[in-house]
């Protein structure tokens, strides 16, 4: 029995460590099985260096046709399961074909890697970065080990950041003017604004501000759009009268937002919208949606 079990066990343990793993920032990442693990955080143009160590099982040797480490940036569409698209693929050969008898460690380095896209876990797709170590073998299949890492890219504050101001209404029924202080927010930002009621002829029950994420994948006829409401924030309780102005102050930090992604590698986009919703006493909804851009600001 021991022998049999041993036969299905991988022939070796492969571990991948980053050279600055102890000092590097770790962030949580949700795995497919639902568990959250902590992984290292990188940004574009950083060098990714580390060690791969291969340790054969006790008393076994590994015959291999070569060892390599790849840095992959992949986009995975869920509706097109299994079809990864690698937008980045870098390879380092670590060893020429031969045998490994004992623990062997290979240093590697990808210097100044272009990683233009951020790690993203969406409704219909994910974008991941991974280090893939392959010990190629003739028989018994190659031994592969992955190490995920996360990429986040920071943007400087936009040089132009106009407020959003708009007057909307239904004739002779409801006229409002709303204003959000900016059109571009960073992830920990606060949305400040005001809603002016210019004309109110309906009995409003309440008013909410929603943050909606619109994720579109594919292109042309194959476009899939998934919209998700991430935040539902009550702005007003009760019916205002003409001339009333209602303040908006919405902190973005409690919500799991990402920056806005536009046409990532021609595969997908993620956009954010503020949706102002008024509900009347008959539960009719009146709403106006405005896109906002979200960016990641370097923590100070």
């Amino acid at each position: 029995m021991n022998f049999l079990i041993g036969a299905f066990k991988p022939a070796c343990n492969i571990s991948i460590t980053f050279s600055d793993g102890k000092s590097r920032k770790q962030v949580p990442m949700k795995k497919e099985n639902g568990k959250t693990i902590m992984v290292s955080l990188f940004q574009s143009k950083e060098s990714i260096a580390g060690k791969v160590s291969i340790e054969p099982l006790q008393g076994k040797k590994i015959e291999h046709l070569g060892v390599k480490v790849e840095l992959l940036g992949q986009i995975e569409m869920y509706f097109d399961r299994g079809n990864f698209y690698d937008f980045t693929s870098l390879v380092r050969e670590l060893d020429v074909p031969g045998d490994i008898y004992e623990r062997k460690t290979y240093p590697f380095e990808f210097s100044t890697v272009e990683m233009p896209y951020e790690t993203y876990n969406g409704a219909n797709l994910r974008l991941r970065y991974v280090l893939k170590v392959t010990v190629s073998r003739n028989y018994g299949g190659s031994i592969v080990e992955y190490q995920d890492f996360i990429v986040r890219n920071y943007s400087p504050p936009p040089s132009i950041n106009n407020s959003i101001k708009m007057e909307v209404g239904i004739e002779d029924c409801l006229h409002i003017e709303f204003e959000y202080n900016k059109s571009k927010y960073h992830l920990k930002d606060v949305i400040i604004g005001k809603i002016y009621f210019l004309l109110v002829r309906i009995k409003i029950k309440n008013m909410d501000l929603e943050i909606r994420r619109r994720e579109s994948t594919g292109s042309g006829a194959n476009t899939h759009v998934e919209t998700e409401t991430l935040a539902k924030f009550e702005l007003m309780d009760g019916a205002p009268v003409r001339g009333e102005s209602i303040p908006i102050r919405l902190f973005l930090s409690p919500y799991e937002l990402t920056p806005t992604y536009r046409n990532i590698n021609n595969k997908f986009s993620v956009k954010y919208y503020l949706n102002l919703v008024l509900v009347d006493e008959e539960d009719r909804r009146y709403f106006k949606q405005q896109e906002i851009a979200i960016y990641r600001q370097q923590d100070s």
Partner: protein
Amino acid sequence: MLNGTEDEEKWLAEGIAGIQHNAFYMHRALDSNNLREALKYSAQMLSELRTSKLSPHKYYELYMRAFDELKRLELFFKDDSKHGVSVVDLYELVQHAGNILPRLYLLCTVGSIYIKSKEAPAKEVLKDLVEMCRGVQHPIRGLFLRSYLAQISRDKLPDIGSEYEGDADTVMDAVDFVLQNFTEMNKLWVRMQHQGPGGVREKREKERSELQDLVGKNLHVLSQIEGVDLEMYKETVLPRVLEQVVNCKDDLAQYYLMDCIIQVFPDEYHLQTLETLLGACPQLQPTVDVKTVLSRLMDRLSNYAASSADVLPEFLQVEAFSKLSNAIGKVIEAQLDMPAVGAITLYVSLLTFTLRVHPDRLDHVDQVLGACVKKLSNIPKLEDSRAMKQVVALLSAPLEKYNDIVTALTLSNYPRVMDHLDIGTNKLMAMVIIQSIMKNNSCISTADKVEVLFKLIKGLIKDIDGADVDELEEEDFKEEQNSVARLIHMLYNDEPEEMLKIICIVRKHTMVGGPKRLPFTVSSLVFSALRLLRQLQGQEGDIVGEEASMTPNKIFQLLTQIIESLSAVPSPELALRLYLQCAEAANGCDIEHVAYEFFTQAFLLYEEEIADSKAQVTAIHLIIGTLQRMNVFGVENRDTLTHKATGYSARLLKKADQCRAVYACSHLFWVDDQDGIKDGERVLLCLKRALRIANAAQQMANVARGSGGPVSLFVEILNKYIYFFEKGNKQITSSAIQGLIELINTEMQSDSTNPDSVADAFLASTLRYIQFQKQKGGVMGEKFESIKL
């Protein structure tokens, strides 16, 4: 099925249960210092306040439960060693709550700690809180939320002397904050009227009035802010509060808030800002009970004025009266459909105010009355009995204040107000005036005042057109006229000339009173004139010849005219008496022809007007009595008059009356004075004649009824005999008396005579008197000695 109240009870119970449930978990979180859970459960707990199903009253119960829990939460928040989060972060953290109502309650709670921590200026935090609370537009929920804000911020305002006082002008921030909260609360409160299900206006108003104190509390807070001095009150607080009050266009709110302003701010502020405050009044909704508002203001100010004499100059300085007066005028002008009673009530208040504040300013009183007249003249006829009552109050106020009608008489508008009363009330008021005069024993001493007074009470003096005279109770009428008669006696001036004027005026007024009134008033008038006459006599030495109009003759002419007016009534008996009085007065003045003239008038009346036999008896006795006292007449005149008197006496209808009148006439010839006429012979003649008549009467009685007549007549004549005998009339002899006694005894013993105990007793005491005189001895005793009993 549950009815409305039971439903509400159920919902309330559910709400309370929800609060208790979440509070339980919140406490657990607090005990274990778990901020996250504490926030979660407190927000859930506060979500119970999101209900729309409860009336304000029940909602308040729910609110109080949550309020108590929030106090515990606040303690936890305050202690950052427990949760490890700075107050600034906490301030952000609570804003993550998705529902607005819990979010804002938590924000206010943390905000109060934020201010206490002084990590941010109080004004910034307050400004933020009051601004954020705009998110709750539901009237009841908003009112309670803002009331919570007011509650937690009360002790944290950046007031002068407060630990939260920041740099310059922070009081202004405190004021701004409270004003803004007040404004928003009032808007919500007013909005309650228009939102929610239609109908049941009354119920909604009741619910609203349950909430009024939440709104008014803000004004109270404002008044407590140390930094609100007069200047700031004048420049900022009051204008802004009033702006809100006027603009909200809601009668309930306007009434309550105006009253609130008046009650919470100090009197001297009101005094200094009267113009502003009053300026708002005409701008209020027509349905607002402005009169009560103004009345209360005036009440407060009058009390303030009464509190200390030191403040009075302030009143003068700000011209409180004219401002109030103007304001009232404007209010009345603006509110066209204000019922008369409202307007008059306002005037009553103003009048009370001025009476208390400026008791010396009669012109003010008159001005108020004048304004009232103006208002009343626009009303065709005052029919509202409440309005009438107010007019009476208006007119009574000065009387009560000054306790003196004389003061009221100087008010030119006083009678004009009275003109607007209905007849009944007018009379009532006139009676009040008269009673006031009587009570205070005030003397009206100038002709002008008398003139005014009679204009005031003209309702009593003459018939007013359209009055239904029959309706009047006889007794009431008598009382009224008696009062007028009494009043006439209160008119007096030491200066005869002025007094004459007064009499002329009274005469002018009373002469138009008609036959029913004259009998009451004429005698008062006559006696008043007679008093003047005596007055004149007292000063005769000084004024004789000085003034032609003031001769007694003139007054007698006047008297004649006055008495003649009675002929219209007619009331001959009264006229006769008055003539006799005048004759006596003329006698006093030693004017023979006038006295003679009065007697002539008296006799004429007797002859022509007095037909009733009983009246004749009375009249003739009066004439005899008066004539007896006259000493002014010469022989000729006297003879004529006495002859007339005796003649009429003998022609009376009943023998007994004849007899008595005739023996009374005997006195006309024997005046027991130094210079009095003493014609013993004619006295005897009279007495004999009386005896003859008595005899005749006796015989007539025998014939007619078969029984004896009036023995008492003989006894009476006997007494006359004794009188003259005593007085030394030589014609009356003891033998004559003796004979008379015997005659009486015979008469008494005759069978036909009915026993008459009164006559017996009379006789017995007469005899006893003679006995007494006999025994007394002396001159008189000797005289009587000859009479044998």
